[in-house]
């Protein structure tokens, strides 16, 4: 029996669209729109001004406080403008627009002199902090914070999240296949820097090729083990992965570190290698471009700040029947009304979906079938919570655990009446947060 977490769903995977496509480099475009709001926490503060000449990898915006991350120039060129520009989330956020210097050759990032045994926790955290390393799985939480020394809560296990449970997306899978050594170097760095006794790679069994390669590569590392998991969504969620691999639950309202665990995503591991061994900040991102609306589905490596339109053009354009453009996976991704916004550190996929894949259906009244209850990985009763949220009974919603919802969307996915359960719950959660922040300020 393969390990897994309780409940959850198994949506149609569509991974085969790009599973065997190797990662292609997209030539950098002439103009990049680098958002300052690329991570969890406060947006970065620009330290350049209009007209400045910058080199590839230069710091262009510094972290604003503790919970923030710096932003670096993906290409060399000239600062054209610092202005508000469309963000993936649909709002306008401050961004630095860089005009690329087409004459200049791309910089070569070579291995620095640091050897593995020289790495200490200080060097490690400093590198992560300076190079703007954030969790690339989606939330973009600054990675260094997870590894800060904490004497009350000793780090016992590092989990590597190689689940990639969202349908269509293959970015992590392809990275593991093509950059195995780079990935393994990152794992060694983490082991060395944190002196953590064990490291487990949680990977779903729909990636047998990657499991085989990792098994061979980790043979000589007694601390690292590979844990194949039964393919299920949302296994890539931090709490689900911990419960699947370790059989432990993160306390409600707590962090994984409360039980001595830190979860790191595959692509984040690779950027850790970049930051520590190559002094290279995050400048590009591996993205899966897929869906039945894309002419040529591909896995690409693209400069941060490239607009989605340019990526779509690189992949042969979209078919006329395309109904929806998504950034991220179909379960938790953001729909885009147009293709103006640009790639962030946290972008994992760009999907063009046709009405056939979306299966849009009208809502029907809730018939209390209980499907959402049996599929909720957090053990909530989504149909009731959504009802409370809809009628603004936030007290009851909170009593039924609305704040424990991880917004994975299993409830709405499994609902035969096509009710917008997680969507309603999300509104309820943001209302609760707004009210409590109002109370604090008054």
């Amino acid at each position, binding site marked *: 029996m393969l390990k897994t977490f309780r409940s959850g769903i198994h949506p149609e995977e569509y991974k085969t669209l790009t599973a065997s496509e190797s990662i292609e480099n997209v030539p950098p475009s002439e103009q990049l729109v680098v958002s300052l709001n690329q991570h969890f926490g406060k947006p970065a503060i620009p330290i350049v001004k209009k007209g400045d000449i910058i080199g590839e990898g230069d710091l262009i915006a510094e972290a604003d406080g503790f919970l923030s991350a710096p932003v670096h120039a993906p290409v060399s060129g000239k600062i054209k403008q610092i202005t508000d520009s469309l963000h993936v989330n649909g709002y306008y956020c401050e961004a630095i627009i860089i005009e690329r210097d087409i004459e200049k050759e791309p910089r070569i990032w070579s291995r620095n002199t640091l050897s593995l045994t020289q790495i200490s926790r200080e060097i490690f955290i400093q590198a992560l902090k300076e190079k703007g390393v954030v969790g690339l799985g989606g939330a973009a939480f600054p990675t260094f914070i997870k590894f800060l020394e904490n004497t009350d809560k000793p780090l016992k296990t590092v989990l590597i999240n190689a689940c990639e449970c969202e349908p269509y997306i293959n970015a992590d899978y392809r990275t593991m296949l093509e950059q195995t050594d780079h990935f393994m170097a990152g794992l060694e760095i983490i082991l060395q820097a944190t002196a953590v006794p064990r490291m487990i790679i949680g990977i779903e069994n729909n990636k047998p090729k990657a499991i085989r390669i990792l098994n061979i590569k980790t043979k000589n590392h007694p601390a690292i083990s590979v844990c194949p998991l039964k393919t299920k969504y949302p296994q890539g969620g931090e709490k689900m992965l911990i419960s699947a691999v370790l059989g432990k639950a993160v306390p409600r309202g707590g962090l994984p570190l409360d039980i001595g665990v830190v979860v790191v995503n595959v692509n984040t591991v690779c950027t850790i290698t970049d930051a520590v061994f190559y002094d290279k900040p995050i400048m590009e991102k591996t993205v899966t471009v897929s869906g039945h609306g894309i002419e040529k589905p591909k896995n690409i490596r693209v400069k941060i700040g490239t607009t989605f339109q340019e990526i779509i053009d690189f992949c042969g354009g979209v078919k006329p029947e395309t109904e929806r453009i998504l950034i991220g996976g179909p379960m938790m991704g953001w729909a885009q009304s*147009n293709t103006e916004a640009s790639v962030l550190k946290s972008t994992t996929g760009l999907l063009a979906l046709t009405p056939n894949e979306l299966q849009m259906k009208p809502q029907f009244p809730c018939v209390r079938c209980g499907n959402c*209850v049996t599929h909720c990985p957090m053990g909530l009763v989504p149909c009731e919570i959504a009802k409370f949220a809809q009628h603004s009974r936030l007290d009851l919603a909170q009593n039924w655990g609305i704040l424990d919802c991880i917004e994975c969307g299993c409830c709405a996915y499994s609902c035969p009446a096509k009710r917008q359960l997680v969507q309603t719950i999300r509104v309820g959660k943001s209302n609760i947060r707004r009210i409590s922040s109002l109370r604090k300020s008054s």
Partner: protein
Amino acid sequence: MTNMHYSIAPGPHVNSGPGDIPKTMLLVNLALLPALFFGFYLYGLPAVLLTLTCIFGTLSAEMFCQYLRKDSLWRITDFSAVLTGILMAMILPPHISLFLAFLGAWVAIIIGKALFGGIGYNIFNPALVGRAFLGISFPVAMTTWVNPQIVSAVTTATPLALNKWENTTTIIKTLIIGTHSGCMGESSTMLLLLGGIFLIALRIVDFRIPFSILGSTAIFAFISNLVSNGTTGSVMFHLCSGGLMIGAFFMATDMVTSPVTPLGKIIFGMGIGILVMIIRLWGGLPEGVMFCILIFNGLTPLINRHTRPSILGTVRGRGK
């Protein structure tokens, strides 16, 4: 840059596909068909007319209510009213007057369903509300049983009444095949079980409810039979007689009126099973499945509230 605009919506952007409500209702209807056709075979034309009257009654009542609520009349195509009609017909005595059947159907839809807000909002199973109304208002018509025409069309009592008041036991084989007297569609244990298993296999019905009803009834019957030296009827007799099978697989499992939590479903089923046996052994009626289900329909919100699954990461002693 093209100025194409795409549709936007909050995620998730995909769903489990075509398993929507009208289709579910249609499949429940299909699962009832074997037992229904067996009823037609047993009682002939009156059974067919009774079914048609009930379906006509529920559909017309549904349309009437939709008209009053200025809602789409096409709502009736969700098959839920048809299901109520078929279920109504199957739990009525086969030779009841068609007027009463029609009246029951209207009560079922209007009082049982529309007054609460239509599909998804009712507290009690509509078909059972209709039957309860008829049972209380027209007790004589509702307890006049005729043997199936293929046996001999004479007035008789149901196996449960025979067992309770005349100490006559019906042969189990008759009960399983369903050639004894009783409501039009509830007699054939075999065919109802078939339909029920079909629904469980399709995951339309949660196995917890029917299994816990039948299980608790069986255990109760076994113990009482042991204590009373075999006068209260065997386990098989209680499982196969009366409305237990149709109740367990098609009435209690009505999604709208049963709990949503897994533990709640088991408590709901066990409660019904135990109450059925209490009414059968000590109550004033020979049969109590209808009232048991209605009582537990009413308790459903309470059961839901107290059987919430534990939230991942709940620390024992802290949190709620």
